[in-house]
């Protein structure tokens, strides 16, 4: 009677979480953007009918949480149609948005469609820095959107990606969230994939910065008590054990990208030698249980030493496959965040560099902002370096 949460079964469970990345289009240009750097290569987005089918198939396979993300999901004008169908099917529907494109009319239509929750991402709380970090004037808009979320009775969840350039303003961010009526605030440090990996040296905070931010977050938690729940996530580069990435490969999360590729996590497409199915060609159930891509890192047959014989392997499942590939050059290696990894020095070196004094933004190396032109340039650059090899 007093253990309401059951332990997960050991066999392959259903894809409880569907992450519907419905578009890569986005009016913002975040330097920490998690979309692939070659996103501009995606031209054929799934159509409305395809998405509706994916929702039905995923729900039938046991998905229950559905997040509409992107890009900026509001960039698609069929978002309301998709939300309505998801809600009708019994999904708990989440919208992950920067708020750009949310008008009173669209908010009302989304409410009507049964949207359960909006997570509003906030780049920062000071206007100049916010404009700089997102490259557009969005700050006032976030305020307006926050008011719309409240007015429609949605739970108010804010998310702010934290990094070297904004972490020293964390008190402003927290106070702002409280002022806007947020019930939850996620202060998650940038993870170093995609665009954030290109900008890692400019984004990774120093140890001192993190300690200060944690201290201030704790003070604010005391001050605000029940009014707001604040989650603070330290960059994994400062840990000695990796995160249990996606709660284990193919265990809970199913991502569908704008072109219909089904992935165990939104960055997995980068892994070489792996093929991932497309929802245009394969049903969700088959994708989840039978496809090579989803089975590749399930269980532990794929593990190498030191993971294979490690007593902690169930705790972290060897960490993140993408991070292993990016930093150790091998997707089946231990995540180099682990201090037992032979590539752990790569993480330590990045951390070491982050201890340099924090300088005004203008004095640091320039950031690479996410955008279609930049993406095409990176694709071109990649082709050239392949040609040279």
């Amino acid at each position, binding site marked *: *009677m*007093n253990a*309401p*949460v*059951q332990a997960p079964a050991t066999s392959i469970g*259903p894809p409880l979480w569907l992450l519907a990345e419905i578009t890569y289009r986005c009016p913002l240009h975040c330097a920490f953007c998690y979309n692939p750097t070659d996103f501009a290569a995606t031209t054929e987005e799934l159509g409305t009918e395809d998405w509706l089918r994916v929702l039905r198939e995923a729900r039938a396979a046991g998905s*229950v*949480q559905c*997040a509409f993300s992107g890009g900026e999901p509001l960039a698609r004008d069929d978002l309301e149609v998709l939300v309505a169908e998801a809600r009708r099917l019994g999904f*708990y529907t989440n919208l992950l948005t920067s708020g750009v494109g949310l008008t009173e009319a669209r908010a009302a239509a989304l409410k009507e469609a049964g949207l359960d929750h909006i997570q509003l991402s906030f780049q920062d709380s000071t206007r100049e820095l916010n404009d700089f970090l997102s490259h557009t004037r969005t700050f006032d808009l976030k305020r307006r959107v926050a008011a719309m979320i409240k007015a429609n009775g949605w739970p108010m969840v804010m998310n702010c990606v934290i990094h070297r350039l904004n972490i020293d303003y964390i008190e402003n961010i927290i106070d702002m969230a409280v002022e806007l009526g947020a019930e939850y605030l996620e202060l998650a440090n940038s993870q170093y994939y995609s665009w954030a990996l290109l900008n890692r040296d400019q984004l990774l905070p120093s140890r001192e910065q993190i300690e200060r931010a944690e201290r201030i977050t704790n003070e604010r938690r005391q001050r605000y008590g029940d009014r707001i729940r604040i989650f603070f996530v330290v960059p994994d580069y400062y840990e000695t054990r990796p995160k249990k990435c996606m709660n284990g490969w193919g265990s809970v999360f199913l991502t569908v990208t704008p072109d219909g590729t089904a992935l165990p996590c939104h960055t997995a497409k980068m892994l070489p030698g792996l093929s991932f199915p497309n929802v245009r060609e394969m049903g969700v159930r088959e994708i989840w249980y039978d496809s090579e891509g989803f089975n590749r890192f399930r269980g532990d047959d794929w593990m190498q030493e030191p993971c294979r014989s490690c007593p902690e392997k169930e705790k972290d499942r060897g960490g993140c496959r993408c991070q292993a590939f990016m930093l150790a050059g091998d997707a089946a290696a231990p995540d180099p965040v682990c201090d037992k990894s032979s590539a752990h020095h790569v993480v330590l070196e990045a951390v070491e560099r982050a201890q340099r004094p924090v300088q005004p933004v203008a004095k640091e190396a320039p950031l690479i902002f996410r955008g279609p032109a930049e993406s095409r340039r990176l694709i071109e650059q990649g082709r050239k370096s392949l040609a040279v090899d």
Partner: protein
Amino acid sequence: MSEAASIVATAKPRVSARFRLQWEEAQQSWVLLYPEGMVKLNASAGEIMKRCDGSRSVDELVAELEQAFDTRGLHADVASFLDMARAQHWIEV
């Protein structure tokens, strides 16, 4: 938690507006859904929670459960579950 006031027998608990309670066929269980999260309830927690709709008092809820499962003496267990559920904000009274 021991210091928080216990739920009174005449109170009528209902699932809090912050959560959605629903039966999940694929998991064969009741779940509580909330922004980006889910709590999977075990069978007895599910039986209690699905009766928390604001129409029954705790006493009535206990009586119903005792009848449905042909048993007696559930009051203490149900009350302690409801106390926990209220502390987690799953229910309001």
